[in-house]
C-alpha cells in the first residue's frame, strides 16, 4: 500500500479506503501497477486518478480508467496514463461524466492506432478541444475515431473534428455532422488518409480530357464527384450520367501517383464512351448477365477505337488488366478475364470463352464503329455463360477492371414495367445512385421571389445594420440640399459558396487569361521613354542632331542626347461600388442573373487589381428608403483579396433599391482616407437610381450627379459602368459622357469592366 515517498498515492489510498464500491478495484489496479513501477513513479497516475475524483466523474468513470490502466499497464507509463486521466477529467468537466467514461472505455481498443506518446497526447488534446467547443458531439465523434485513426492517424481525426466544428454553432447541424448524417462528414470519413482524391485532381483531369477529346462533337469535359450512397462501403465505379462523368471521391486504398494514374485511366475511359458516341440500348428483356456481357464488349469496342486514335492509352489502361485464370466458376472472374483477353492480345487463357470472345470481336472489327456488335457479341457470350451454368451474382457484380465505368450509361431504361425494374435494380444495385443530372440547380437555393421589376421592396426593420454616417441629399425640385437626410448602414456580408463561384469563374477561363495578360503587361511592360537625358541606354537621334547643328553653328551644344526609360509607378486606390438592387435578379438567356454576371466581373477585376498590387475595396450597396442605405463591405482597403472576400462576393443577394448618390458620398468618405495619388470610384449599376420613398427617380439621378461633381472637386474620379441593354440609361447624365460606359450586352461585362480599369488606371 502507499507509502510516505508517494504523498499523492497515499492520499488516494486513504480516500479509496472509505469507498466501498471502489476499494476492491482500486487495490487490484494498484497491485498490477506496483508490480512494474515503484510507488514514486506511480505519482502521476495517482494524480490523474485524483483529478477524476475531484471533478466528480463518478464510480463508473474511475472503474473505466482502472480497467484501461490494467490493460495498458504493460505498454504505457504511469505518466502517460495519468495524462489520459487528466484529459478525461477535462472532458468530464465540459461534456459530462458519461462522455469521459466512454472515452476511457474505448481508449485501450485504440491503442494499436495510437502508437507513440505524441499521438496519444494529440488524441486527448483533440477530444478535450471538442468537449469544450461541442460537448454534445464527443461520443458521436469517438464512434468514427477508429476508422479515421486507422486510415490517417490523429491528423485525420483532427481534420474531421475541426471540419465538424466549422459547420457552425448550430447544435443540430453539428450533431448531424458527427453522427455522419451529413454527406460532407461521410466523405471525410471515407476518404481519410486516402488521396489525392477527385477534389485535388478535378482540374487536371478536366484539362487532360479537354486535350484529348475537345475536338469531338458533343464532348464537354464535365466532371462531378459521385454522390456517396448512405452506408454503402463497397468500392465504386465511375458513373456516366448524361453528359456528366461522375468519379468517386477516392478509390479506396489507392494513394499518390497510383491514384493519379487510376483517376486518369477512369476519366479517359469514361470520356471515350462519351466522345466516341455512347449508344443507348433499350433495356427490353435484357437480363443482368447479358447487360454485363454487352457492357464488357462495348467497353472493349470503345477502347479499341480510342486506342487507334491515341495509342498511348494502352499504357494507361494496361496495368489494371490483371485477371488470371482461376478455378472458381464465378462469372465475374470469368468476365474480367474476357476483358483482359480482349484488351491484351498476348494474354493466354485456357477457358474457351476468352478465345470465343476474341474471335467474335475480331470478326466484327470491320464494323467496329457500330455499337450493335457489342449487343450481338455480348448476348452470345451471355448465352454461353448461362448454358455452362456459371453463377452470376447480379447484386454483387462490379465491372472489372477498376477504371471502367459501371456501364449503366448504355441502357435506356425508358418505359418498363415494374417487374423489369426490379430485375434491373438487382443488377445495378451495387453501383446505382439515384440519378441527379445537376446536383446544384442554380435556382434551387433561392427562395421564390416575385419577379417584379425590382423597384421598391419593403424591408424588414430588424435587419438594419450599424449606422456609418448621415449624408445630405440634393432635392432638385426644391433646389436645396437637405442636410443629414440619408442614413448609411453597414450590413455584414453573407458567406456564399466559393466552390460553385470558383467553377463559374473557371468557365470563363479564356477571359481570365486575357485579363491576366493585361495584368502582366501593366505590371512589367510599362516603361516610359524619357528623351533628351544626360545619360541613357541609347542615343536620342533628334537631340544628337540638334547638338550637331548647334556645334556647326558655333553654339554650345546641349549634352543631353540620350534616351532612357523609367518604370511607370502605380499609385492608385480604387473603390468598386456594386449595385445589388432587386432588378439585378433578372435572368438572362443563359440562366444566370445579372448579379451573377456582376459578381464574376467584379471577381475578375479584383483578381486583376490584386495582381497589380493596387489598393482597392469592394462595396455592395442597396437601399430601402432614406433611413436605410445599406453598404456591405466585401473587401476593405486594408485587407488582401482572398477566399473569404471571394466568399462574401459569392454570397451577395439581390434586393431593395438603388440610392446611388448617398452610396457615392459614403464611398468618397472612405476612399478619401486612403493615401494614394489617384483615387477612383468605379460604380457598377444596372440602371437608374430609385428608391421606395422617392416618387420621381430623376431626383435621385440629379442627386447622384451632384455627388459625382463634389467627389470630382475633391480629386476623386468617378466612373460608371451601366448595364444598359436597352440603351436608355442615365449613365452619361450622372457620370458625364466621358466617364460613363454603357454595356449593352451584359455577358460582355467582365471583359469590359477590366478593360475599362486598365484604361483608367493608365491615365
Amino acid at each position: 500500500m502507499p507509502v510516505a515517498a508517494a504523498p499523492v498515492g497515499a492520499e488516494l489510498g486513504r480516500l479509496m479506503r472509505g469507498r466501498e464500491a471502489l476499494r476492491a478495484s482500486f487495490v487490484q489496479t494498484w497491485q498490477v501497477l506496483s508490480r512494474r513501477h515503484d510507488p514514486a513513479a506511480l505519482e502521476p497516475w495517482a494524480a490523474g486518478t485524483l483529478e477524476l475524483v475531484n471533478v466528480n466523474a463518478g464510480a463508473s468513470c474511475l472503474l473505466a480508467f482502472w480497467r484501461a490502466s490494467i490493460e495498458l499497464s504493460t505498454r504505457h507509463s504511469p505518466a502517460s496514463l495519468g495524462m489520459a486521466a487528466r484529459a478525461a477529467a477535462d472532458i468530464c468537466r465540459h461534456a459530462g461524466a458519461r462522455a469521459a467514461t466512454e472515452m476511457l472505455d474505448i481508449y485501450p481498443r485504440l491503442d494499436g492506432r495510437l502508437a507513440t506518446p505524441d499521438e496519444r497526447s494529440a488524441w486527448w488534446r483533440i477530444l478535450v478541444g471538442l468537449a469544450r467547443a461541442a460537448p454534445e458531439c464527443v461520443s458521436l465523434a469517438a464512434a468514427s475515431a477508429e476508422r479515421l485513426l486507422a486510415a490517417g492517424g490523429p491528423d485525420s481525426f483532427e481534420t474531421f473534428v475541426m471540419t465538424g466544428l466549422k459547420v457552425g454553432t448550430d447544435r443540430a447541424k453539428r450533431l448531424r455532422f458527427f453522427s455522419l448524417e451529413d454527406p460532407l462528414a461521410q466523405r471525410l470519413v471515407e476518404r481519410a488518409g486516402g488521396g489525392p482524391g477527385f477534389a485535388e485532381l478535378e482540374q487536371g483531369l478536366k484539362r487532360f480530357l479537354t486535350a484529348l477529346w475537345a475536338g469531338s462533337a458533343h464532348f464537354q469535359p464535365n466532371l462531378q464527384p459521385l454522390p456517396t450512397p448512405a452506408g454503402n462501403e463497397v468500392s465504386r465505379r465511375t458513373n456516366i450520367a448524361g453528359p456528366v462523368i461522375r468519379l468517386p471521391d477516392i478509390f479506396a486504398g489507392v494513394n499518390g501517383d497510383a491514384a493519379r494514374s487510376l483517376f486518369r485511366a477512369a476519366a479517359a475511359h469514361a470520356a471515350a464512351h462519351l466522345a466516341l458516341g455512347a449508344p443507348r440500348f433499350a433495356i427490353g428483356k435484357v437480363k443482368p448477365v447479358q447487360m454485363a456481357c454487352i457492357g464488357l464488349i462495348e467497353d472493349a469496342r470503345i477502347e479499341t477505337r480510342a486506342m487507334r486514335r491515341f495509342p498511348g492509352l494502352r499504357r494507361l489502361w494496361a496495368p489494371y488488366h490483371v485477371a488470371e485464370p482461376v478455378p472458381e466458376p464465378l462469372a465475374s472472374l470469368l468476365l474480367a478475364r474476357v476483358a483482359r483477353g480482349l484488351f491484351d492480345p498476348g494474354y493466354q487463357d485456357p477457358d474457351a470463352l476468352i478465345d470465343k470472345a476474341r474471335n467474335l470481336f475480331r470478326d466484327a472489327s470491320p464494323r467496329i464503329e457500330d455499337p450493335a456488335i457489342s449487343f450481338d457479341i455480348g448476348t452470345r457470350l451471355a448465352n454461353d455463360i448461362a448454358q455452362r451454368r456459371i453463377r452470376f451474382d447480379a447484386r454483387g457484380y462490379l465491372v472489372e477492371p477498376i477504371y471502367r465505368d459501371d456501364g449503366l450509361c448504355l441502357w435506356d431504361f425508358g418505359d418498363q414495367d415494374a417487374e423489369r425494374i426490379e430485375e434491373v435494380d438487382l443488377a445495378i444495385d451495387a453501383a446505382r445512385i439515384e440519378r441527379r443530372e445537376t446536383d446544384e440547380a442554380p435556382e434551387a437555393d433561392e427562395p421564390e421571389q416575385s419577379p417584379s421589376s425590382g423597384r421598391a421592396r419593403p424591408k424588414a426593420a430588424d435587419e438594419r445594420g450599424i449606422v456609418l454616417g448621415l449624408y445630405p441629399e440634393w432635392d432638385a425640385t426644391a433646389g436645396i440640399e437637405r442636410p443629414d437626410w440619408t442614413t448609411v448602414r453597414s450590413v455584414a456580408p453573407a458567406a456564399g459558396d466559393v466552390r460553385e463561384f470558383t467553377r463559374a469563374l473557371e468557365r470563363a477561363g479564356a477571359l481570365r487569361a486575357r485579363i491576366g495578360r493585361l495584368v502582366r503587361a501593366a505590371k512589367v511592360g510599362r516603361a516610359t521613354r524619357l528623351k533628351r537625358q544626360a545619360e541613357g541606354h541609347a542615343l536620342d537621334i533628334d537631340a544628337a542632331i540638334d547638338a550637331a547643328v548647334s556645334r556647326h553653328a558655333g553654339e554650345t551644344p546641349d549634352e543631353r542626347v540620350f534616351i532612357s526609360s523609367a518604370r511607370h509607378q502605380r499609385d492608385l486606390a480604387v473603390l468598386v461600388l456594386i449595385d445589388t438592387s432587386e432588378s439585378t435578379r433578372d435572368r438572362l438567356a443563359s440562366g444566370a442573373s445579372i448579379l451573377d454576371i456582376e459578381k464574376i466581373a467584379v471577381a475578375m477585376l479584383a483578381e486583376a487589381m490584386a495582381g497589380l498590387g493596387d489598393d482597392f475595396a469592394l462595396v455592395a450597396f442597396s437601399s430601402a428608403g432614406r433611413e436605410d442605405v445599406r453598404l456591405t463591405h466585401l473587401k476593405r482597403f486594408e485587407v488582401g483579396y482572398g477566399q473569404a472576400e471571394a466568399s462574401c462576393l459569392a454570397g451577395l443577394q439581390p434586393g431593395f433599391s438603388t440610392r446611388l448618390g448617398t452610396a457615392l458620398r459614403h464611398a468618397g468618405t472612405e476612399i478619401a482616407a486612403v493615401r494614394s495619388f489617384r483615387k477612383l470610384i468605379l460604380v457598377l449599376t444596372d440602371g437608374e437610381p430609385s428608391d421606395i420613398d422617392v416618387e420621381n427617380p430623376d431626383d435621385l439621378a440629379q442627386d447622384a450627379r451632384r455627388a459625382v461633381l463634389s467627389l470630382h472637386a475633391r480629386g476623386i474620379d468617378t466612373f460608371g459602368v451601366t448595364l444598359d441593354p436597352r440603351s436608355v440609361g442615365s449613365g452619361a447624365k450622372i457620370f458625364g459622357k466621358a466617364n460613363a460606359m454603357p454595356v449593352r450586352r451584359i455577358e460582355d461585362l467582365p471583359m469590359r469592366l477590366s478593360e475599362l480599369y486598365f484604361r483608367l488606371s493608365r491615365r
Partner: protein
Amino acid sequence: MNLDAYRVSIEPYYRSVGDEVAIFEAAYASRLPVMLKGPTGCGKTRFVEYMAWKLGRPLITVAAHEDMTAADLAGRFLLSPEGTVWHDGPLTLAVRHGAICYLDEIVEARQDTTVVIHPLTDARRVLPLEKRNELIQAHADFELVISYNPGYQSAVKDLKESTKQRFVAIDFDYPAPALEAEIVAREAGTGGELAHTLVAVAACSRNLRGQGLDEGASTRMLIHTGRLIAGGVPLEAAIRSAIVLPITDDADVRDALDAAIAACLP
C-alpha cells in the same frame, strides 16, 4: 537603289491549304493591301515569302515591336560629317522601289505608328515624309502586307478600326491533320507516321487553348520537334523540349498536357 538583296531567289516550300494564293494574286493585281490573320507558326510568313517569289517582287520584312516609332518605318535624318543625311526606312524603301512590304505582328507597334500606313492603303497610295517635306507616290509594284494575330494579343492591343478596314484579309489556321502531317514530314524530313503522331500531339495542345494554354503547339513547333528527332533526340525528349516546355510554365497544365501527349504516343 538595288533591292536584289531582298529578292527571294529559291522557291520557298509552301503547301497551299485553300484559296489563299488565288486571293493574294487577285489582291496584288489591284494592289490592294492584304492582312494575314491567324495563330503563330501556322505559315503566314512563309506564305508571304512564297508569294514574293511567285510574283517576282522583292520582300522587305519589318517585325513590329512596341517601341517602334514612325521614323523606324519611314526613315530619319542621320548625322554625317557634313551635317545631316536622310536615310529611308524600310517602308519608304519599298514604296520607292516597288517591293512587297511585310509588317509582321503589326499590333505590337503603337497605334500612332501604324497610322503612317494609312495614306498608302487607300486610293491615294502615297507616303508623306513630313520631315523631308516630300510626298512619295508609291511605285506601281508596291504592295503592303501586314500580319495580325487576333488571339493572343491583349485587349488593349487591337488594330484601330480605321486601320483594319483598309485591308483584304486572309484567314490562316493550322492545316487539316493529314495536310499538316505532310508539311511536317516534308519540312522536318521525318517519316509519315511520326508526323501523324506529332500532329495528334499538337491537336491535344490546341484543345487546351484557353484552358491554361494561350496557344496550342504550332506547325512550326512540330517541324522543330521533327528536326530534333531527326537529329537523334528520342521522341519523348524532343516533344518535351520543343513543345511542352516552350508553351507552358504552369506545372499543373504541364502535367495534364504530358498525360494527354503520352496517350498520343505509340
